[in-house]
């Protein structure tokens, strides 16, 4: 496994993270040795398709993966110098929601349907800022106004809000205690495009205002282009390419990254035919220990790709590619 070129400890430092869980009789190899860093005040985009392991990475950072199916979690997750994976639960709970918080994909299900929204926000504030219930409510209403929901709707229940409004509530919950790191897991996937624009702008503005670091998980390269500083492309539970936004969008190097761009209908270019990536997404119940997981679908695969697992190659400073072919460039 590679070490990224950052000798000093980053704000969030993840090294060789591995997560496996059980699904029936199968073992799912969800995350297979992922390492990356997030510096203070920057935004990292985690891009990949369904089942690539993006959400698992995010949940592992907060250790909120479901206990009943989790089989193995290994590696190092260091947040501001503290080791998250080996921390006692009590200490971890003081970090969750206060220093690291999360926005979830589906606003329809992420809110407790039988609790007024203001209480769902106030709960975290009361817990982490030692405020009385009354004060926490006042602070929660302020949060609601900050995300563009008028205070007279504070006592309403989630079902009384539309999708976009619910996502605003979720954002308010996440930012209630002014966290240092925000993990946004597909925050706009369930929303319409004009609402997506509103929500992305809201997240972006609040992030800049509060100076929060962010990990944005998405399958949409367009969203990444507008929001992130650095990008990690995830495939089969591995980061197969990592770099700045410019590295990835201007010089995509891994055949999968190139394939993703080719498969995407582009608004600014005219192509008669799309060039899809052949084959199917990888089977997560197979562990690719001795080969490149992308080899079966890769148009440029050589014999080496099926026999040896590629390691990260730094083709330009900070631009890492996990591919045998990157060497030749």
């Amino acid at each position, binding site marked *: 496994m590679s070490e990224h070129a950052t000798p000093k400890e980053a704000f969030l430092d993840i090294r060789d993270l591995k997560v496996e869980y059980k699904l029936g009789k199968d073992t799912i190899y969800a995350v297979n040795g992922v390492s990356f860093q997030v510096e203070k005040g920057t935004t990292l985009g985690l891009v990949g398709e369904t089942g690539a392991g993006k959400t698992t990475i995010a949940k592992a950072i907060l250790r909120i993966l479901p206990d009943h199916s989790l089989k193995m979690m290994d590696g190092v997750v260091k947040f501001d110098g503290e080791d998250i994976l080996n921390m006692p639960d009590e200490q971890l709970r003081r970090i969750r929601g206060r220093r690291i918080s999360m926005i979830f994909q589906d606003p329809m299900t992420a809110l407790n349907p039988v609790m007024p929204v203001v209480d769902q926000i106030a709960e975290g504030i009361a817990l982490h800022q030692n405020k009385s219930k009354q004060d926490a409510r006042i602070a929660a209403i302020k949060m609601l106004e900050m995300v563009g929901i008028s205070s007279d709707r504070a006592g309403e229940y989630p079902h009384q809000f539309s999708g976009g409004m619910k996502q605003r509530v979720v954002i308010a919950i996440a930012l209630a205690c002014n966290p240092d790191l925000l993990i946004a897991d597909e925050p706009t996937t369930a929303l319409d*495009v004009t609402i997506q624009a509103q929500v992305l702008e809201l997240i972006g503005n609040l992030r800049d205002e509060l100076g929060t670091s962010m990990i944005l998980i998405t399958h949409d390269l367009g969203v990444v*282009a507008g929001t992130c500083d650095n990008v990690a492309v995830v495939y089969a539970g591995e980061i197969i390419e990592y770099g700045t*936004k410019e590295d990835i969008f201007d010089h995509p190097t891994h055949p999968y990254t190139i394939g993703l761009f080719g498969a995407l209908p582009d608004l600014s270019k005219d192509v008669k035919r799309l060039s*899809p*990536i052949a084959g199917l*997404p990888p089977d997560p119940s197979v562990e690719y220990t001795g080969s490149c997981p992308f080899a079966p679908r890769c148009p440029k695969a050589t014999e080496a790709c099926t026999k040896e697992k590629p390691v990260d190659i730094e083709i330009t400073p900070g631009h890492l590619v996990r591919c045998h072919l990157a060497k030749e460039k």
Partner: protein
Amino acid sequence: MAALLEVEHLKKYFPTGRGTVHAVDDVSFTINEGETMGLVGESGCGKSTLGRTCIHLLESTEGKLLFQGEDVTHLNKKQLAEFRKKVQIIFQDPFSSLNPRMTIRDTVIEPLMLSRQFEGAQLEKEAENLMDLVGIERRFYNSYPHELDGGRRQRAGVARAISLKPKFVVCDEPVSALDVSIQAQILNLLMDLQDEFHLTYMFVTHDLSVVRHISSKICVMYLGQMVEVAPTKELFDKQYHPYTKALLSAIPSIDIHHQQKRIMLKGEITSPINPKPGCRFAPRCLYATDECRKPDQPLVEVGPDHFVSCCRVKEINNL
């Protein structure tokens, strides 16, 4: 090109406990033979309802439907059976659109069998040809839908839809449940089939980049009303309706060096239940005046085949 489907002042209302839902409210357009019309809009705008109403999966409340020049607004059982052979639909969710208790082979065979054009071994052979055509491997012929991935399931849905060699296919968000890499495979398949069988598509979607790729003409809907219809190239070059402008500007672009300024709309889509007269977009529109709230908004022709439903289109765009 001859017109294949002409839709005139089509309306589809649903009575509900809380009032009448105006899902499709006075929509008119024409689709020519062999072309693809993209129907775009956000969730709840009535685009799926419109697609289904055009092919008699839902009965229209008011208006006129012409198919190959014939009036097909009202059909008796026999006419409907004939009509069904010419129009088909591909659904969004490739799981719920396949009967979970039928194998892929049975799903594809069923329409062939019902058409009575094939028998016995011929039936089997035709079904296998179809499955081959859409790219389902032989080993999956006898699989049940839950054993397949989304892409293959959608291929089965496509095979069923084209089995009777229809003229017109409504594609209702056929790729929105699929991943980017699989989405491209299905889009290519649909385009290949269009060339091969001279199909006409109505492509219903919320994804503007997909619709730009596949359509020759685009119709934008908002809350049951058509706001703008134009040839694809023209629409992406120049939009006239304030909603179309906002919609197009909101699409995240993958061009990191030219991120355009987004037009932010106020608020969210309002209710289609007993809507107020006039332009449905008016409550969110930056340019709305009292005039916009009058009933019977005009459809303005702003260019060749380019229509906009906005009474202030000239002032807004300095025409």
